[in-house]
């Protein structure tokens, strides 16, 4: 399995968590981004994500590789959902295993920041009144900091 995946099925957080197992691991930091029922004061009914799969996987994998270079990580994994998501469903899952907790937390938060900033995935919000809008998003930087 790839370390970073794009999926149109529910993210199997139990299976992803299992892949963090490592005998030298002392700390696992996990982030789940889930669909919340509000955005900037508006009630959200559901989300639809599009993704450019091959570049999303490549970019996500590059982010994980960069994180492994910056921190002494034992395992670093990520997954982003695409398609239709209801409230409470996981849109993204990031998991990091390391010997000590400080680098697990730091790397997990950094990976998530980078995924939001660089992975080609787009979120369309459908509001309670039925109107839709693409989330504002981030212009991708061509040369990210190494």
């Amino acid at each position: 399995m790839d370390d970073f995946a794009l999926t149109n099925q529910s993210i199997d957080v139990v299976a992803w968590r299992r892949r963090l197992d490592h005998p030298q691991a002392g700390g696992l930091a996990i982030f789940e981004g889930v669909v919340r029922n509000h955005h900037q004061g508006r009630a959200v009914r559901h989300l639809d994500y599009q993704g450019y799969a091959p570049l999303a996987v490549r970019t996500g994998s590059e982010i994980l590789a960069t994180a492994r270079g910056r921190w002494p990580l034992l395992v670093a994994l990520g997954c982003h959902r695409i398609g239709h998501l209801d409230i409470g469903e996981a849109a993204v899952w990031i998991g990091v295993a390391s010997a000590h907790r400080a680098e697990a937390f730091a790397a997990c938060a950094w990976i998530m920041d980078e995924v939001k900033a660089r992975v080609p995935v787009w979120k369309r919000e459908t509001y309670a009144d039925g109107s839709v809008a693409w989330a504002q998003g981030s212009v991708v930087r061509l040369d990210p900091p190494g």
Partner: protein
Amino acid sequence: MAALDIVFAMPVPGSSGVIQLTVLYFAHLRDQRGLDSEIVSTTAADAQSLYRELAARHGLSLPEKSLIVAINEVMVRWDAPVHAGDTVVFLPPVSGG
């Protein structure tokens, strides 16, 4: 071949030749174009020229500074050349997570 006939029927002055490439659309641009992808015949020599041509032809509203270009699944600069058979994507601001 019919496709080639059409291509040669639309020569563009100043071009170094007409090529065919694939353009994929996502998010706002997919909505504006009304297509996920298309084969485009163009005389554009680089990504910027290609986007300007498509934007003018189809009323794409996103400014270049809000987009980044990917050619064959690699992010590149706006002055990157385009070649026959390339897959070109203009990526709107991303909003994962």
